[in-house]
């Protein structure tokens, strides 16, 4: 019989956090620091959600989503985690593009992008400045009618090469397309352009270990391998959760599970207004991903060919083609030994965007065949940048939308959360059920490592405010 991982849990917590993605972890830490008693429940045996890693025999270790985040992570980690975590963040300076339209290397910041757009693409400097300023000025309260396609059309009409240069990396960073609202592009693009791309030195495993230590210091009760079956409500208020058959009472729930799963499965659609459920059901999940993990033999080395390589043999950038199963656009994330100081190992992770529907219905046999095809075409593409790479690799495997769904329980393996409309539904949740909050990858702008951490803080503030009012009114009632 499985051991009861909730045996010594308390009967009541101020807040129960469901899920330990970066938004859940950061929300939990913030609430504990504010003095709330917090229980964090994670279904997997590792904390971190999509911020995760895995090991394979032969000393291989692969990071799933570490590949690169904006400079804002340094400030957010220092404020919401620890100085030590923030101090481990370092810049990646070698970002390469290679496709039939152009081939170049950049530090991926505003200064260098401006130079490239002027010198390489021949755009007027003033147009570039205007574009950067327009992107940076966008915020959530703006008009959301303009699409990213229209934004590019306005500044760079007829320049599919410029669109590719500006859009392809962001499509990999947040799964957005040319038809999403321009602010989903502008906010994320500007975050990156502020000072370039950064990574956590030490790897995802070290980051999550440091976060766990900090959560324990702040008194969060951390439990893994526990699946939450139900969020209990009474008279439109959260009363607790049922996990492993045990009911635990709480003042508020902060769900870091998928937004739609939270509403439709954990709470139940009958507990909400019809109009709200209609809106929630209409929220589109974002696309998923495929990855190929390549481990380099011990003793082998790789030349530095850049840190992030955006490669493609497609003639032009195309949002639909980007998710297709026979996609040729892929990002290679190069992990040299300095990513884990003290290690002498190399690894390469190839990422492509993907559709759940292309993978979910395959027979077992076809699924395996398609995975092998993905591995073969990935290695073929890599051969151009690292000749003889097959001889250097002694471990290779692939993940698909089904793999992500299996490990994270994220509906349809959605690696970028929901489309834009998900943000409003996420924010409106507490208006439907008192004490029910959601933080996670929603609305494209709240996705990625930085978006998840900051959204975790924003919602933790709402939870904390709710708890203060609730506890004060209980005190008044008692006195």
């Amino acid at each position, binding site marked *: 019989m499985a051991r009861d991982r909730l045996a010594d849990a308390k009967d009541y917590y101020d807040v129960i956090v469901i899920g330990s993605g970066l938004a859940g972890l950061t929300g939990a830490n913030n609430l504990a*620091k*504010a003095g709330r008693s917090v229980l964090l429940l994670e279904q997997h045996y590792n904390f971190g959600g999509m911020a995760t890693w895995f090991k394979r025999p032969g000393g291989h270790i692969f990071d799933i989503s570490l590949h690169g985040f904006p400079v804002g992570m340094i400030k*957010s980690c*220092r*404020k919401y985690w620890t100085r030590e975590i923030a101090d481990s963040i370092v810049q990646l300076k070698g970002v390469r593009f290679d496709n039939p339209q152009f081939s170049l290397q950049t530090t991926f910041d505003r200064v260098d992008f401006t130079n490239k757009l002027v010198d390489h693409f021949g755009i007027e400097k003033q147009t570039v400045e205007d574009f950067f300023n327009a992107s940076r000025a966008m915020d959530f309260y703006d008009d959301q009618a303009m699409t990213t396609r229209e934004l590019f059309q306005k500044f760079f009409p007829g320049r599919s090469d410029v669109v590719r240069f500006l859009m392809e990396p962001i499509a990999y960073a947040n799964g957005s397309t040319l038809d999403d609202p321009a602010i989903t592009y502008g906010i994320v693009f500007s975050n990156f352009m502020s000072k370039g791309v950064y990574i956590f030195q030490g790897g995802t495993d070290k980051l999550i270990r440091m976060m766990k230590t900090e959560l324990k210091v702040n008194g969060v009760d951390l439990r893994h391998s526990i699946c939450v079956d139900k969020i209990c409500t009474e008279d439109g208020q959260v009363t607790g959760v049922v996990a492993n058959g045990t009911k635990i009472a709480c003042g508020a729930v902060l769900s870091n599970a998928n937004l739609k799963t939270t509403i439709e499965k954990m709470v139940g659609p009958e507990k909400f207004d019809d109009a709200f459920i209609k809106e929630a059901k209409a929220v589109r999940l974002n696309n998923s991903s495929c990855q190929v993990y390549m481990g380099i033999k011990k003793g082998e080395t790789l030349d530095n060919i850049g840190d992030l390589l955006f490669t493609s043999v497609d003639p032009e950038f195309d949002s639909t083609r980007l998710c297709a199963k026979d996609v040729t656009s892929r990002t290679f994330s190069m992990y040299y030994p300095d990513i884990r100081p003290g290690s002498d190992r190399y690894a390469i992770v190839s990422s492509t965007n993907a559709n759940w529907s292309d993978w979910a219905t395959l027979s077992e046999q076809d699924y395996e065949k398609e995975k092998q095809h993905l591995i073969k075409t990935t290695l073929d593409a890599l051969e151009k940048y690292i000749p003889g790479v097959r001889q250097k690799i002694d471990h290779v495997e692939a993940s698909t939308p089904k793999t992500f769904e299996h490990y994270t329980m994220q509906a349809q393996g959605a690696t970028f959360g929901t489309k834009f409309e998900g943000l409003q539904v996420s924010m409106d949740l507490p208006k439907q059920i008192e004490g029910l909050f959601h933080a996670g990858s929603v609305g494209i702008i709240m996705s990625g490592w930085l978006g998840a951490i900051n959204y975790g*803080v924003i919602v933790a*503030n709402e939870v*904390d*405010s709710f708890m203060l*009012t609730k506890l004060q009114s209980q005190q008044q009632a008692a006195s």
Partner: protein
Amino acid sequence: MGDLNVKKVILEIISIVAPDADLSDVKTDVRLRDQLEMDSMDFLDIVMELRKRYKIEVPKEDYQMLASLDSCVEYLAPKFAALSPA
């Protein structure tokens, strides 16, 4: 709590939420984000610190009242006054 002390409390909180900000010469009538490189997350942190330290609640619609030091004092002084026993 007098106006001077409210100002001191706010500056102390800013020094924690924006540790890189130079607070030696903050103009009281100029918007904080125009002189200190503060973003919306920093202002959210001020709201959280006020709640944690003094149980003072700043509702979302009043966030704009924290724009400058002067407006902070004007908005928060009555709230601080309400805390002290008469």
